[in-house]
């Protein structure tokens, strides 16, 4: 499957939401922990060899579960048939908790749910649809099932 690699690599160079050197272990039997520079940018987790500028890979943080494995270790499990699990070893409990929080909140679907929640609530409180002024209230991606007035024609 083709993808816009150059553009993704460019994205990986942008200011990250969060970045750190973590111990990372892949999902395959026999994978060992390797030190990687891990960067969270939008809903992608890029990982680099610690001495390289180009990322080795990018994990899309959608349809996954983030779990605390241990005091300083969290995992990301992708919910496809294979249920691939990636482990990340942090340097402290605090760092581990912060990463879990950041990864969960990075998901596009998570943010979309928040948007819909705020939209509904603001409408309930003010009678107005806050998305109207952006000109995006009709976009299917922001729709709520109920509770909003019909869009203006």
């Amino acid at each position, binding site marked *: 499957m083709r*993808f816009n690699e150059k553009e993704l*690599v460019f994205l990986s160079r942008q200011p990250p939401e969060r970045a750190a050197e973590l111990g990372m272990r892949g999902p395959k039997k026999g994978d060992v922990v390797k030190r990687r520079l891990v960067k969270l940018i939008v809903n992608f987790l890029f990982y680099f060899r610690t001495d390289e500028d180009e990322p080795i890979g990018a994990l899309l943080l*959608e349809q996954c579960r983030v779990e605390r494995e241990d005091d300083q270790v969290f995992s990301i499990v992708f919910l*496809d048939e*294979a249920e691939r699990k990636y482990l990340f070893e942090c340097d402290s409990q605090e760092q581990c908790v912060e990463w879990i929080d950041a990864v969960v909140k990075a998901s596009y679907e998570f943010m979309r749910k928040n948007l819909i929640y705020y939209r509904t609530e603001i409408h309930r409180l003010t009678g107005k649809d806050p998305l109207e*002024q952006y000109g995006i209230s009709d976009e299917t991606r922001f729709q709520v099932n109920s509770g909003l007035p019909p869009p203006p024609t």
Partner: protein
Amino acid sequence: MRLFENSPGHGCTPGGVVMKIHEKILTHYLSCTSPVDKEGYLYKKRERNTTYLRRWFVLKGNLLFYQERPGDRNLLGVIVLEGCLVQACETDGQFCFSLVFTGPGLRTYRLAADDHLSQESWIGALFCASHIYLSMIVRDLERRYEEAKKDKGLCDSIQTSAVTSSSNNIMASWNSGQPYFVHGTSIVPRDGRSYSTSSVPPPSTQNRPISYSLHAPPIQFKTTNKRSPKLWPKRNAHVIPLNGPAPSYGEWPVVNFDPLEEFSKLHEYYGNEIKQLRAEWLKKKRGEVGHVEEDLIDLG
């Protein structure tokens, strides 16, 4: 530097470093039960060729997948929609539009729709598809939610008279979608006429450039105020006018990925207009008989 030749899930940069994208995660996201944001046939121009090939596109989140036909198991590719402008462009004929990735050596994807409606609909959907855009809106809504909760407590006991506009609508109203472009050249005001705002983009005729615009709302006045609301000119944050040649590469707006920084610049830039309006309004109001001293904007 490692090289792979067309192994699955690896990029195809000739002679370059290859990054693994974990294809199965993407395809699972695409095929899982959450609804897609848009799908349909579009024509996609080949990278090194001038032909357009018909492909079935599926937009979900900030990812644009494409395959030969709907229901095909084999996905041809995916475009991650971060860091691109969405523009109508007629150079290749009718109903074309582009995804312009701004940055050195980055690509422009040229697409075309079957008709005007489809073109506008796709441009609209792609325009607000990025994670960065969504995150900006969510942050703004979160703030407005907090304020609405507070206001609700106040409003129940206070009767407001003249002006109903809230600071939130105005101060937060300028939103250009992608926060990259602060450059004056990238935000093109439409011709001098004002338009009444609505959430639907204005209809375009064949002779005019097709555009998708975001627009700020008018300052709202209750009907008791005889002055008609000022109408804001539409601004096309993502359409470069077609009357001249496209700006040369060096003139493309600077891509800056810090949404907060860019947004605050935009906020300041458009805030000045509002400050001016407010000052004028106050001056005028003070001249009127029976004027109750009250600001145009309640900044709380």
